[in-house]
């Protein structure tokens, strides 16, 4: 049973590179946490500080309510899977998995007793005598996981464990990791910059940018109620459309787009004095048929570019001065250069202050 807590964690690399800034997070026992963010935002650094591989410049890290700042990695009861797998090239699969146990001074038979079930679970048993260079990428990945699991640590750390694999293998390994976590229920922290991995694996996602936490929440929260413009633009593919708007109020709050009034039916943050804002609409919330929508806003536009992606089509058009992307089922018939109606779902709008970038609007129908 292990909880993990970061309290005001800072990391400053030599040369005054301030990589992690006031990082705070409490992770419950058994939770699957994903750190997600663009390259260089400090995900690995934070993870490595928790692992004990990197000095902590400020703040405290607690595992099971015990400060671990000055403990060696081995004393923290963690195991880590590295991006490059970092298998020992001169050892067989068996020796790789057994190495930590051997260092811990276990007897040969005890080691064997622990390695066998792990190898079975990861389907490595037929490969135990091979050297890492004679393994495929996916097999190496599993050895790296086996090496972490055999120690039965309290906390599992993964640093982009799947980024060296091809797309297909990545999907199956992702499922495998998910299944494993369900089975052994250990606290897990997983670093990635792949949002699909984050959305599918996480109990909660931590979005990082430039060493700062932008939002912490369940995948649903992050997707449906992004806390700020960065998160909104980072999550979701294709990316959310951003349209600069002027905020106005008569009977209720509304914005004008392409000469039409778009009513904001939810709660607008009244404290905002700024009337300049950015409207955010996800490509899948702009429809090309009014089906299933109650009282949508209808806007005429020309289809400028159309791409068939398989089950969906993706097209670009114009809304006032801004270009927008629309995603629709590919069963719909539209052609390039055609003028068509776009139906905007008023219950799925996002609005961000231009001053702070923070979300300033809560639609009535929030899907949690």
């Amino acid at each position: 049973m292990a909880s993990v807590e970061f309290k005001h964690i800072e990391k400053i690399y030599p040369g005054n590179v301030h990589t992690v800034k006031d990082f705070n997070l409490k992770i419950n026992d058994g939770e699957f946490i994903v750190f997600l963010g663009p390259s260089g935002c400090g995900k690995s650094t934070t993870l490595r500080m928790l692992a004990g591989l990197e000095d902590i410049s400020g703040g405290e890290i607690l595992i099971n309510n015990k400060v671990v700042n000055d403990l060696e990695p081995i004393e923290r009861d963690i195991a880590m899977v590295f991006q490059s797998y970092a298998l020992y090239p001169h050892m067989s699969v068996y020796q790789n998995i057994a190495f930590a146990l051997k260092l811990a001074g276990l007897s040969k038979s005890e080691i064997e007793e622990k390695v066998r079930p792990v190898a079975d679970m990861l389907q490595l048993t037929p490969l135990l005598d091979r050297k890492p260079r004679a393994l495929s990428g996916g097999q190496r990945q599993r050895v790296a996981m086996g090496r972490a699991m055999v120690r039965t640590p309290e906390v599992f750390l993964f640093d982009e464990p799947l980024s060296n694999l091809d797309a297909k293998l990545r999907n199956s390994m992702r499922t495998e990791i998910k299944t494993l976590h369900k089975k052994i229920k250990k606290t897990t922290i997983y670093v990635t910059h792949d949002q699909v991995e984050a959305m599918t694996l996480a109990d909660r996602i931590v979005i990082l940018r430039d060493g700062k936490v932008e939002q912490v929440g369940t995948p649903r929260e992050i997707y449906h109620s992004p806390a700020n413009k960065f998160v909104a633009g980072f999550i979701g593919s294709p990316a959310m459309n951003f349209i600069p708007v002027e905020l106005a109020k008569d009977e209720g709050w509304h914005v004008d787009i392409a000469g039409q009034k778009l009513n904001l039916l939810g709660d607008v943050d009244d404290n905002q004095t700024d009337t300049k804002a950015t409207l955010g609409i996800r490509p899948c919330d702009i429809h090309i048929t009014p089906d299933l929508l109650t009282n949508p806003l209808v806007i005429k536009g020309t289809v400028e570019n159309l791409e068939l992606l398989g089950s969906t089509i993706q097209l670009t058009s114009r809304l006032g001065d801004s270009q927008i992307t629309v995603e629709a089922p590919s069963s719909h018939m539209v052609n390039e250069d055609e003028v068509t109606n776009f139906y905007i779902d008023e219950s799925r709008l996002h609005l961000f202050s231009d001053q702070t970038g923070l979300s300033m609007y809560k639609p009535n129908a929030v899907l949690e």
Partner: protein
Amino acid sequence: MFAMRKIRWGKYIFLMLVAGFVLVPMFATVLGGFKSLGELRTNPFGLPDVWEFEYYAQVFADGSIWLLMKNSLIIAFFSVLLTLIIGTMTAFTFSHIKFAGYKYIYNYFLIGMMFPAAAAILPLFLKIRDLGLLDSLSGVVIPQVAFGLGFSILLFRSFFEQLPSELFDAARVDGCSYIKFYWHVILPLSTPILATVGVFVLVASWNNYLLPLLVLNTEQQYPWTLGIMQYRGEYGIEWNRILAYVTVTITPAIVFFLFAQKYIVEGLTGGAVKG
């Protein structure tokens, strides 16, 4: 196409010339031991007309060569051993631990590389004398290790730094201290570079003449390089005996080289391909 073939032939000819420079004297030496003096004078390079085994037999019969070889072997063995142990440990420290002033200390070691032993004869002699190591094998071993250290640390360090840093991270998470990492991971992965440095040090030690001359006085301690000078003194004009003697003495170095060669080739190309 034609030009390509020409270049290829040019390469072969060049390589054969180079190989010839090494091999012709070597064969002449080996074969010279089988020739009579007269034949040696008229036919220095060819195969002997009459194979005479007595000169080789005499070299072995004269028991002194065993003692000389034994001394050479002891000196070489400890030089290699100490250079490898001290060199890898120092290089490991420099590649993994960043402490205050490590750059200066590292460069201090490297300066040793630019220093020809011959130029340091006098201070070296005084130092060895002060340490009370004159006329002992360690008086030869220790300076040899010192002179070889700069170059071996350079090679070891660049090799260690090519090892992925995540390997060390993984080992730490598995519970390795620096020492354990050095012992369980670094050393087993370093066989190519160990063999490379080992051969260089061994050959240099085996052929070293100046240092033993400086340090050793009693014949009991002489390595073969000093022994051969005496032998030559005895049989000054009998070149066939001397050639036989030389052949016998360089054989161990060649055998060791052939044995280590497979690792050396691996060592020089090892980092080239991503594995």
